[in-house]
């Protein structure tokens, strides 16, 4: 069955706009179907059962995707994933604890295509954390639907071991008056390519997409954001911060924001800041705003790529702090703005320690 489906895919050549930054040869065959598929289903619910939350695996045919994608990996997930991991939060439920999902990795067992569906009922309020650790080759689609008036904080942690390959879409559909915040952390893996995308389906909606990434030698970390303003009176904020250190460390940040003619009253701002900590690293940053109506509140973007600020290092060192400690403070400070939004001290400390580790790896 898989082979008949395969003929329908448009396998990217690397020249396409969407793929021009990605080293296809390092995707482990996720894009062209050549990867050796394993049988594992790695995702599981790590937190305790809570009233108002169900997390089950359902037959793919029973829950067709509401959001088709042009991305070939997402298409493969939709067509070939073993099943769908479905999480739903009942209407009017406010969870007091986060729903913690994690991928349990055993030894490398071939690649996995994983389909995840998250649904928040009307006026539901939740925090969902997805933790990715270990070694994996993963094609993933996470489709999130926020019911009217609901709020979701969605945290994904790409803390992969070296050598992991992860290509995924995190797609959120926001119904009337819902509020979505995502925090995307990518620190591990050989190649990580994420598509955080937002589709406003009703007015009064607001989305905040936050992210941090840290690429060291040989790592490719790519985040392609797409925010689709198709309805009036929606607000979006994007803020991604990245650091790079080491030879062939490569990050890609694309921020596509489209304001359609119908999207009057749109308020959007996107920001990407990169800290280049050594030679031989490369940060691509491409904000892209398309505006089809002038009746908006505001639309803007900014992108900066800089090195350590000598004045900051001098100030810290003039108080006796050695160079490596000063750099650590500056980098931690750079990321703190976003990491502290996670709101879980244990995770925040773990990530900061990982960031220290990445810095040390790069010889700082």
């Amino acid at each position, binding site marked *: 069955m898989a082979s008949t489906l395969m003929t329908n895919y448009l396998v990217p050549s690397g020249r396409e706009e969407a793929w021009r930054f990605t080293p296809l040869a390092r995707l482990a065959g996720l894009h062209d179907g050549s990867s050796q598929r394993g049988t594992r289903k790695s995702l599981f619910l790590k937190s305790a059962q809570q009233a108002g939350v169900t997390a089950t695996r359902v037959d793919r045919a029973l829950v067709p995707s509401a959001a088709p994608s042009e991305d070939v990996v997402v298409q493969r997930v939709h067509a070939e994933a073993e099943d769908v991991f479905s999480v739903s939060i009942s209407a009017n439920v406010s969870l007091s604890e986060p729903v913690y999902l994690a991928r349990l990795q055993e030894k490398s067992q071939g690649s996995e295509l994983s389909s995840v569906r998250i649904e928040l009922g009307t006026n539901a309020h939740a925090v969902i954390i997805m933790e990715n650790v270990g070694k994996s080759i993963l094609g993933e689609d996470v489709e999130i639907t926020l019911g009217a008036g609901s709020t979701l904080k969605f945290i994904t942690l790409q803390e992969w071991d070296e050598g992991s390959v992860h290509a995924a879409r995190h797609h959120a559909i926001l119904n009337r008056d819902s509020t979505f915040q995502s925090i995307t952390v990518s620190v591990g893996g050989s190649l990580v390519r994420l598509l955080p995308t937002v589709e406003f389906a009703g007015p009064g909606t607001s989305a905040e997409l936050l992210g941090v990434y840290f690429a060291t030698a040989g790592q490719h970390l790519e985040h392609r954001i797409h925010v689709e303003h198709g309805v009036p009176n929606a607000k979006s904020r994007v803020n991604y911060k990245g650091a790079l250190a080491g030879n062939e460390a490569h990050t890609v940040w694309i921020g596509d924001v489209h304001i359609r003619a119908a999207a009057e009253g749109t308020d959007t701002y996107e920001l990407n800041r990169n800290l280049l900590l050594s030679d031989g690293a490369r940060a691509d940053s491409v904000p892209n705003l398309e505006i089809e109506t002038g009746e908006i509140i505001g639309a803007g973007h900014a992108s900066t790529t800089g090195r350590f600020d000598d004045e*900051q290092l001098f*100030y810290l060192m003039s108080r*006796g702090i050695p160079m490596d400690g000063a750099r650590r*403070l500056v980098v931690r400070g750079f990321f703190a703005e976003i990491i502290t939004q996670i709101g879980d001290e244990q995770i925040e400390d773990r990530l900061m320690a990982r960031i220290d580790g990445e810095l040390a790896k790069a010889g700082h």
Partner: protein
Amino acid sequence: MSTLEIRGLEVAVVTEKGPIEILRGVDLTVRSGETHAIMGPNGSGKSTLAYSIAGHPKYTITGGTVTLDGANVLDMKVDERAKAGLFLAMQYPVEVPGVSVSNFLRTAATALRGEAPKLRTWVGEVKAAMNALNMDPAFSERNVNEGFSGGEKKRHEIMQLELLKPKIAILDETDSGLDVDALRIVSEGVNRAKEVNNLGIVLITHYTRILRYIRPDFVHVFANGRVVEEGGPELADKLEEHGYAEYVGS
């Protein structure tokens, strides 16, 4: 008892158009417990002198020596100069986003003392230092110099002076941008540090106002990158009356 000795110091700043000579042979000796006022017009090189002693990478030493108790300061890295006992209160303290004052102070104290200060006594120490400078306790959770008013920045510098206990401190226009009350509070902090630690002070200013609160033992007039006149406190009064005109025109 410590001595900071500056001999024939020449400093250039490297610009796109090449190096520009700023300090043209500065001589100055500062001992523990002494207060030296350095007064001079804008652009005369006062901050350059301060930064050069602290080791700012922007400045290139082209001649002369700086020693602290005989040790060659110019050979030391920036943090080593602080460990040797030098402190610079900056004219424009730098913002460090995302780094809280409390984290910063503790990291600095740990580096200078060689071990992390005991948490209980440390918290008390910081509280007392902030209290003495009329600072809100919430201050310690703010990011270093981020969004600080001019006065808050200067108080924060002097708080560090009191906590980090250097041997010789250079205060670069600590008085500028302070209202009368803040000037008094900050000056009292400097005087405490002098009393408690027998601090040697280089007080850079171009107004005599702060000298009413911090009495100098020596006054050095600075112009065109060198000391052009020296004297006691009475020299400050003369400057108050006549300004710098007679020194800069030449």
